[in-house]
């Protein structure tokens, strides 16, 4: 029996293993349906089966027989909730969006039929969308969009274009992600991973001796964690590839392993990186190059920053000896936090007569092409990296990851395009992480309540990798009182970390900002006014003053709380470096009488397409829609990588420069083009028609006074001035069941001028979501004996849903970066750093119990409060 899919009868496979999602995507080409978790938790694969929202990743394909199926493609694009998602910017990377809109279309229709055109409350919407997860955290926009569609506000096409240039592609399922671009005839590759924490691999072979197999071992043929890639195999179908992978024989020589943080520090622990060469080759998860540091056994470091450090240490020691009540010395820990973008790592590689083509989910199209060219010894112009849309990354998709290695090597052996896509278990095991930390902070105040000394010692728990920077970041907070900060790494036989959104930042704030709160308590002072006294940063001072005037802060509960449910409000401050890519370029081309902007950058979900378009149209005084943006191809002029909060601060000024160059080039041809100000529409049309083929390339104009640290490696400079943030968080603690609910949040962000208001707010709202996830739920757990990751699906690695996140108001302080072309810097990282710490301080305010360990699980609350 056929299924009716989007109105067309289509045959259904009679397979015991095929899922409806795989059939819709691979069999029918309906790639709007996304597979993200594979276990029916995240909802990205939701389709309507006989009108009911159904997770197609669990539904057996044969169950579609005789049923009516509507995918996101079948909704068309005219459903009010699709328009509402676009208009309210209820999306970022867009990977979860098809599932959300399919579900929401039914909810909205049902709601309106039952309640008329009224707005459901947030809890009702959270109930309806409980089967959907958005890792970017676009929940504010999603809730607003659903409510507005229910109220009948989007029955007709809105006049204003959506804030996000690719919004309509994303709400209709038209947006193609890298897995969707595999050409017909592509093979599937599957990675075979270590089942032992430490072993030398003697041999690897495919059971039949014929299946294309490539080894992915390091030169010493040693695996150092469970889940480390050993080899990869390819076959014409995913099922055949999985079967082939399951039968690969790996012959191991087991070696002694150490997986515990404390055990690794014991003198007789097996060494993870025994030789000098091993240590130098240890993977690094810092954003900047890792400096050489001394090692003692499995401990690397310290990396020390000191400002009158001996004075700081002497003061702290004598305060400790004297039992000074104004010495706050405490230890805080954070758990391993996973990026878990909903689009997994994926690469489709194809060796071709023009070279090597890669459809890949990456945060750095241009840099990746450089790296691939160098690794496989190709001319750069024979490497074609394409990334139309990226389904989130948060730092995990930067560089040659094992999916890329496997796909490239297998494609060469198989003589066909090969797609390698991580399963969710692989994504949650070996796709990077924000390592756990153990941080000891000591603050001493003098008689006037001024900061007299600070020390921070932090140990990163990054598995086989190194590069913790938690303490280093604390060095940059709270003025110039004497201080010494030290970063250490403890290595174990566990998977390596990678930079994750504000690397080192949230653990730093979790420790430092709670210690500062504790000091405020000891001094009997308002936590905001203490920070206002201690913190010399002008931008953050403006945020403190603003925060103090919010209702959330002014009307916060005072005095001891009683009863089962206790409300509390906490605050935390944050800073971040201002980074940019000095080599950023944007090309503007006149093609068929229209303007096209091109650059080898990529949209991670932050909305750089709209930033480029708006910058160019504003600069030229054109109406919206006056320029088409094409990004995500390495053949375009160099664009910056999307990490280190620098895409907008690099590409925005380059776009403005390109617009200026275009104006000047058009003016050379047609003097009616004015030197500045809006260009008359008619004049522009004629000027463009006469300039067919014209191409200009804009670059990243220098900041006034230049950068603080010019071009470090990899198109990276540190600019002058730091971005800042202040978060005010309200929580409600259920003291009986040990549950914390984050209810409201005010996020004050100082990153200078904002390029794209709604998209920037969305990103900051999403940072609150991720910070709340880190504070309350998210924790990669591993087996203490083998280090094997146990939280390898999205049921056990728990990211927040709509019902778990606070209603968030974002405030921008827009001054302080006038020396930067464009006037604004990045905000992706500064907006996440202080969130978990603000939750911690709010929990203390509510309960009088100071949390030390993240996440704030019910067991910890129950133990702590009693």
């Amino acid at each position: 029996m056929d299924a009716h899919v989007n109105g067309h009868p289509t045959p259904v496979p009679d397979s015991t293993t095929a899922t409806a999602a795989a059939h819709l995507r691979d069999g029918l080409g309906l790639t709007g349906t996304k597979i993200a978790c594979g276990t029916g938790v995240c909802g990205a694969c939701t389709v309507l089966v006989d009108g009911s929202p159904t997770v197609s990743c669990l539904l057996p394909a044969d169950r579609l027989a005789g049923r009516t199926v509507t995918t996101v493609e079948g909704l068309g694009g005219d459903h009010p909730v699709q328009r509402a998602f676009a208009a309210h910017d209820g999306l970022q990377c867009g990977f979860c969006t098809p599932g959300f809109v399919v579900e929401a279309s039914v909810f909205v229709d049902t709601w309106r039929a039952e309640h008329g055109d009224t707005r459901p409350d947030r809890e009702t919407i959270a109930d309806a969308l409980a089967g959907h997860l958005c890792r970017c955290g676009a929940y504010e926009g999603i809730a607003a969009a659903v409510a507005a569609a229910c109220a009948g506000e989007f029955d007709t096409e809105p006049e204003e274009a959506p804030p996000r240039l690719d919004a309509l592609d994303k709400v209709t399922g038209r947006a193609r992600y890298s897995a969707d671009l595999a050409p017909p005839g592509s093979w599937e590759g599957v990675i075979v991973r270590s089942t032992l924490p430490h072993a030398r691999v003697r041999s690897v072979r495919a059971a039949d001796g014929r299946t294309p197999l490539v080894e992915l071992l390091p030169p010493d043929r040693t695996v150092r964690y469970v889940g480390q890639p050993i080899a990869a195999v390819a076959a014409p179908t995913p099922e055949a590839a999985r079967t082939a992978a399951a039968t690969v024989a790996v012959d191991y020589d087991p070696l002694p392993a150490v997986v515990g943080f404390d055990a690794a520090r014991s003198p007789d622990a097996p060494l993870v990186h025994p030789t000098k060469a091993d240590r130098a080759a240890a993977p690094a998860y810092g954003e900047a190059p890792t400096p050489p540091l001394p090692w003692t056994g499995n401990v690397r470091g310290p990396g020390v920053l000191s400002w009158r450090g001996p004075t700081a240490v002497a003061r702290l020691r004598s305060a400790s000896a004297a039992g000074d009540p104004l010495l706050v010395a405490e230890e805080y820990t954070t758990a391993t936090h996973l990026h878990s973008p909903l689009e997994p790592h994926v690469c489709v590689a194809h060796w071709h007569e023009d070279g090597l083509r890669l459809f890949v989910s990456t945060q750095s199209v241009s840099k990746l092409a450089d790296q691939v060219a160098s690794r496989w010894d190709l001319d750069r112009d024979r490497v074609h990296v394409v990334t139309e849309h990226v389904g989130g990354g948060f730092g995990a998709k930067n560089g040659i990851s094992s999916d890329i290695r496997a796909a490239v090597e297998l494609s060469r052996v198989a003589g066909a395009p090969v797609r390698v896509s991580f399963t969710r278990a692989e994504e949650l095991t070996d796709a990077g992480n924000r390592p756990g930390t153990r941080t000891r902070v000591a603050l001493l105040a003098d008689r006037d309540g001024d900061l007299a000394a600070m020390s921070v010692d932090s140990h990163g728990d990054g598995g086989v990798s190194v590069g913790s920077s938690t303490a280093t970041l604390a060095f940059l907070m709270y003025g110039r009182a004497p201080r010494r900060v030290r970063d250490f790494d403890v290595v174990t036989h566990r998977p390596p970390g990678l930079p994750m959104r504000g690397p080192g930042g949230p653990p730093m704030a979790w420790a430092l900002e709670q210690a500062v709160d504790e000091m405020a308590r000891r001094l009997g002072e308002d936590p905001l006014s203490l920070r206002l006294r201690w913190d010399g940063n002008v931008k953050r001072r403006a945020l403190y003053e603003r925060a103090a005037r919010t209702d959330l802060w002014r009307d916060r509960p005072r005095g001891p709380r009683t009863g089962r449910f206790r409300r509390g409000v906490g605050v935390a401050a944050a800073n971040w470096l201002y980074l940019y890519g000095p080599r950023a370029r944007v090309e503007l081309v006149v093609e068929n009488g229209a303007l096209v902007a091109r650059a080898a950058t990529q949209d991670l979900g932050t909305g750089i397409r709209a930033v480029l378009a708006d910058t160019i149209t504003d600069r030229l005084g054109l109406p919206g829609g006056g320029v088409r943006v094409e990004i995500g191809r390495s053949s375009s002029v160099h664009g910056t990588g999307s990490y280190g909060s620098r895409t907008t601060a690099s590409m925005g000024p380059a776009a403005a420069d390109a617009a200026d160059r275009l104006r000047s080039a058009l003016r050379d041809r047609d003097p009616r083009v004015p030197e500045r100000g809006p260009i008359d529409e008619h004049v522009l049309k004629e000027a463009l028609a006469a300039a067919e083929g014209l191409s200009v390339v804009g670059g990243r104009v220098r900041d006034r006074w230049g950068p603080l640290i010019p071009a470090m490696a990899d198109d990276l400079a540190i600019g002058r001035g730091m971005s800042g943030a202040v978060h005010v968080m309200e929580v409600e603690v259920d003291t009986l069941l040990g549950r914390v609910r984050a209810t409201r949040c005010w996020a004050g962000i100082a990153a200078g001028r904002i390029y794209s208001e709604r998209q920037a707010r969305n990103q900051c709202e999403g940072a609150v979501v991720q910070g709340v996830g880190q504070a309350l739920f998210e924790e990669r757990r591993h087996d203490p004996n083998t280090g094997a990751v146990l939280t390898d699906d999205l049921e056990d690695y728990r990211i927040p849903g709509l019902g778990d996140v606070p209603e968030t108001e974002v405030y921008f302080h827009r001054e302080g970066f006038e020396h930067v072309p464009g006037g604004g810097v990045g905000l992706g990282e500064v907006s996440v750093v202080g969130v978990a710490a603000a939750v911690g301080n709010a929990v203390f305010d509510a309960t009088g119990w100071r949390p030390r360990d993240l996440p704030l699980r019910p067991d910890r609350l129950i133990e702590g409060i009693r």
Partner: protein
Amino acid sequence: MSTIVRPDSLGGALAALAEGARPRAGGVEQAAPGAVVDLTGVADLRGIGPNADGTVRIGAMTTVAALAGLDSHPALALTAGALGTPQIRGTATVGGNLLQRTRCAYLRSPVFSCARSGGMGCPSREGDHLHGVVFDSGVCAAPHPSSLAVALLAHDARVEVVGPSGARTLPIADLYDAVDPVRDHRLSPDEILVAVTLPAGIPGDRVAHRRAAGRSRAEWPLVEAVVRLSPNPDGTVERAAVAVGAVARVPLRLPEVETALVGAVPGAPPGPEVDAALAEVVARCSPLPGSRYKVELVRATLTDVIGRALSP
């Protein structure tokens, strides 16, 4: 070559099982390789029907979402409505939920073997068992995952089973085995769970349900509790049923708490005998090192549901 059989009768389904096919209900648990018998078309497995005596028969293929609308048995409806996600509730069936596989990361992982996967012992016991049992019955440390079983236990439900030797019914408690660590349930591979039968609902029952968990929705509970209080004509509690889940290899009734609740007065706080009974439950707990917190959480969750069931 694996095949799918789609019988329209119990007889057909039993015949397929006898040949080694695996039953498939909602399809929520992903299929293992091999032949499948899809139960969608079997009429005897469908429908919710009140019987003449007021009991309610629920076909095993009834979805969880349908149970969530069962007004006659609110404790079951509340439990069903809090389970999983809306999409899962729309797909998952009563039978599949009751007979689902143990949820344990170690059991799922290809890296480990244990008593349940043909090896020895339990690596979770020696390793991570934050979600583990708090009433330990040996070997396997993973609690039973079915929420519906907890509510059905509180309703004194019976299950109807057919196999090659005919039909039988058994109390829901007997569907599970606390001691045998290897099995998810006591059905043999050639049997089918046909239906669940609930005693007649009692109008005026005071009920409450709670999943203690971190997130607000769509989360496996750390502890789950259901309470059902049946009133005397004067409103005091005549009979109580209290069940907890996520704490043992099987869902548990708590007789000491039930006894203590008899005579309780709605609107008044529970008396000291209830506290004493909760203390007895706590004393009976035998947690593992990592699940010790659940002892207090059991008490807290029961306090919550009892308090809400007795609230005015």
